[in-house]
């Protein structure tokens, strides 16, 4: 018997523009103790589904049709009192942003104690005992002190553990997880996922896991459903989804992710054209119609398509799923294989020091790295690694406080944009992370391009400028008519294209891209990455690519630098970096990456604790406090030597190369 059974659900919202169906014709079953994953991009209705289950849709939302049966009870018709018993008691939620999900002015202890008091009529003393026990279960050290603290006194990972503890307190039958690790660093995310798997076994709770990240879902779920534009498009056992995806959208999603071992030369990413439609604006027949390569007029656009079982336990909502069974044809690689070329960016012992009160913070500590003309240099690291600080110094938006940074021959370490000559500024341009912040909301999207062309002296008369702007729009595959639109009329992916066009307006020699796709939907990421690499290769631009995503870095980089708390841990050609010898931090980082393929097993190395504050650093190796292979006091006291593993592969570690070479590779194919 299933625990949760949703049938023909339709959820509508009334807005100023009329009624919008956020969820349509949705049916699914979750069994006792099962782990069910729901994948979808932003706006597909997955969070709405969670709130509909909880009966929490706000003033303007309602269940227009269907039923939500939980333990035999139809939650759609439940009274307020019945809902209260279910909420937090039988079904609990782990929220996406633990920082905002906790009450900032109440101690952790009191917030948690409310659960047993409300659901089990527990006395304060017994509630306190239960809370302490569950806090220990989620591996929070010193539960008593945690209970006395306020949310802002905990780190992001700790807060998420508190939220998980809160959800488990009433021992619910079903746990709804709404992107619980989004926004956490990879190593912290890996630990939270481990915890969820552990707790699931211990408490026997069923999981309903919602995420846009196929890699994360692959690690936790037995069965996976894919949601698009308010409807389920595919529902199958986890292994099957990854091995034989049937819906064109599922296939597109998988194709747009870099798989382990793939790179831009052998396996270019496949992107899904178009943009994710906003709620209620997708075609009624097949929501994916306008973006689907297989869409057939007269067949797909006639009437709503049903979700059919095509194999045992494998449901697909597509009339042409059989045609979608062909292997994904990957476009041919257009990337040049570059010969060794001259170095255009060279940092030597570059340091950026901040002062926080009386303490110093070394955002970049004696950074040494180089980028070659026309190559892609990726800088990887988690939050606090100082990768963005380096990007800013390189672009001239910040200045170094020590060392040198040679760009095209001149030391610009202490020269901000204002003090660099026009030529240098034009030569180094930047694409930023946040698509919403990258364009001025008050001006049409063509404006930064026109302005750049004029300021760089590339064109002065209107006609030439118009022609150049049109050419730049063509280059980023946007219709030039869009130049008069305001940023709020564009999707995130379109904004990033404009940002790329702006950066290339002056034909820069070096492009700094700071997490340019991390804020975009998965299906859009691939297109932007492909575009960026295409232009970069064509113009032989040096690309300095800042990212936290190792999968992506492995895919697109020529050289990689791994940073941790302001220092370089390891650097080298991409091929060398992903195989032993590893720096212990790189090894942990690789182990933490959620791989979107259940068939690939990663060697599991987990880091204890979280990234420490960059204010309290030891004179030795920055990673020493968390290093699973720490040798002893030498790691804390002495800066690590740089070990040369050949071919520019440098490892900053006290452990001798021979021992590092003996490490097992992180990725293995399960046979």
């Amino acid at each position, binding site marked *: 018997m299933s625990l949760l059974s949703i049938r023909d659900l339709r959820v509508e919202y009334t807005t*100023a*523009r009329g009624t919008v169906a956020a969820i349509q014709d949705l049916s699914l079953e979750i069994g006792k103790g099962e782990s069910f994953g729901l994948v979808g991009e932003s706006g597909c209705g997955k969070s709405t589904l969670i709130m509909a289950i909880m009966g929490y849709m706000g003033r303007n939302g309602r269940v227009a049709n269907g039923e939500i049966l939980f333990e035999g009870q139809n939650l759609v018709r439940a009274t307020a009192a019945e809902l209260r018993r279910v909420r937090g008691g039988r079904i609990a939620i782990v929220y996406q942003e633990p920082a905002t999900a906790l009450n900032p002015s109440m101690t952790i202890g009191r917030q948690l104690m409310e659960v047993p008091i409300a659901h089990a009529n527990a006395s304060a003393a017994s509630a306190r005992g239960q809370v302490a026990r569950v806090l220990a279960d989620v591996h929070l050290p010193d539960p008593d002190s945690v209970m006395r603290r306020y949310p802002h006194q905990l780190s992001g990972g700790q807060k998420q553990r508190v939220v998980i503890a809160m959800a488990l307190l009433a021992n619910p039958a079903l746990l709804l997880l709404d992107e619980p690790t989004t926004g956490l660093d990879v190593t912290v995310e890996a630990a939270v996922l481990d915890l969820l798997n552990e707790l699931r076994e211990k408490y026997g709770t069923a999981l309903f896991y919602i995420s846009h990240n196929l890699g994360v879902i692959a690690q936790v779920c037995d069965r996976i459903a894919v949601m698009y534009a308010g409807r389920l498009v595919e529902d199958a056992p986890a292994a099957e989804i990854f091995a034989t995806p049937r819906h064109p959208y599922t296939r597109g999603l998988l194709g747009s992710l870099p798989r382990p071992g793939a790179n831009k030369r052998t396996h270019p990413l496949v*992107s899904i*054209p*178009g*943009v*994710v*439609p*906003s709620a209620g604006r997708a075609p009624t027949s097949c929501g994916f119609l*306008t973006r689907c390569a297989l869409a057939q007029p007269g067949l797909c656009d006639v009437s709503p398509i049903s979700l059919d079982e095509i194999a045992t336990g494998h449901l697909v909502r597509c009339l042409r799923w059989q045609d979608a069974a062909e292997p994904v044809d990957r*476009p041919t690689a*257009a990337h040049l294989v570059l010969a060794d070329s001259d170095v255009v960016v060279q940092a030597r012992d570059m340091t950026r020091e901040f002062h926080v009160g009386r303490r110093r913070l070394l955002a970049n500590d004696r950074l040494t790295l180089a980028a070659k003309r026309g190559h892609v240099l990726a800088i990887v690291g988690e939050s606090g690694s100082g990768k963005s600080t380096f990007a800013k110094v390189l*672009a*001239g*938006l910040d200045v170094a406080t020590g060392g040198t940074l040679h760009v095209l021959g001149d030391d610009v370490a202490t020269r901000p*944009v*204002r003090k660099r000559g*026009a030529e240098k*500024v034009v030569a180094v*341009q*930047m694409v*930023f*992370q*946040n698509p919403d*912040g*990258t*364009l*001025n*909301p*008050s*001006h049409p999207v063509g404006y*930064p391009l026109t*302005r*750049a062309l004029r*300021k*760089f002296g590339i064109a002065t008369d209107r006609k030439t400028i118009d022609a150049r702007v049109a050419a730049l729009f063509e280059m980023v*595959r*946007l*219709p030039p*008519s*869009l130049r008069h*639109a*305001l940023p*709020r*009329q*564009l*999707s995130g*992916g*379109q904004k990033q*294209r404009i*940002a790329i066009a*702006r950066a290339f307006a002056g034909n820069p020699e070096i492009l700094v891209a700071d997490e340019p796709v991390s804020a975009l939907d998965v299906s859009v990421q*691939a*297109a932007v990455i*492909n*575009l960026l690499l*295409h232009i970069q290769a064509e113009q032989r631009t040096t690309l300095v690519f800042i990212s936290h995503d190792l999968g992506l870095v492995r895919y697109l980089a020529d050289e990689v630098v791994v940073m941790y708390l302001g220092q370089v841990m390891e650097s080298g050609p991409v091929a060398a970096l992903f195989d032993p010898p590893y720096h212990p931090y790189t090894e942990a980082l690789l182990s933490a990456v959620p791989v979107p393929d259940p068939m690939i097993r990663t060697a599991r190395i987990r880091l204890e604790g979280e990234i420490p504050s960059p204010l309290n650093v030891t004179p030795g190796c920055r990673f020493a406090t968390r290093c699973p292979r720490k040798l002893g006091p030498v790691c804390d006291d002495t800066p690590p030597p740089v070990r040369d593993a050949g071919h520019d592969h440098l490892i900053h570690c006290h452990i001798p190369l021979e021992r590092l070479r003996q490490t097992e590779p992180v990725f293995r194919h399960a046979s």
Partner: protein
Amino acid sequence: MSATVAAETAGRATPSLWRRLPSSPVAMVGLGIVVFWVALAIAAPVLPMPLPNAQDYKAMGHPFGSAAHWLGVDPLGRDLLSRIVWGGRTVLEIAPIAVVIAYAVGCAMGLLAGYYKGWVDAAISRASDVILSFPVVVLYVILIANIGPSPVNIVVAVVLASAPGIARIVRGLVLSLMPQEFVAAAYLRRESDLFVMLVELLPNCRGPLITDFCLRLGYTTITIGTLGFLGLGLPPPNPDWGGMVREATSMITVFPHMSLYPTIALVSLILGFNLLADGITELSQAD
């Protein structure tokens, strides 16, 4: 390579605030009241009514109203309707001028403080704190009592009292805008400080400032009325709502209409500005 991205846009274009105004009943009522007074003020010279300072001694026989004086006359036999219409004209001239100048000064202060931070910010913020530490009415009373009541001095006083508050808002907005990437992008185009402040930052302060502008028009109308009532408004015999109330309060038990009519006029205009501000806030939150 991917196909050309379709021209269709993901997010729908939100029409400008002005065009969405009709969808807020609150804003429309407010706008209606304000437009009513503006229209009367503009039409004042051509309306068929006595001049505001013309005294009609015969009318004092029927102070409550007659065919010649719809709303009656004041203690000096002057037509109340005419004085109210002309009084509205005065308020609607002084208040917007004062608020616009206050905005120019306040925006400049806020932009400089938020943009340059450091000692510029410290100097501007401390100076604002000093002004803001005065109870507003006390500030007006001391100032006007010493520099003398006149339209120019009222404008000066309003600017002095309002600019620091506006500066504080703009400074906050600028501080939140500065870390945005489009500002960095402007630096990478080698734009000047002035350009960044005026073209990149200021237009994005628009939203919150429009509401504040309407509210401030309301406050300033209150201020002008209050100053008139305290005897610090326009020198007589200029028609001035606050002054009209002042002149008539001593007779409120006999001729309540003489003080009530200008009071109602004043309250309605303030209400108009406040409702407009409320409506705009509501619309901007609905996004």
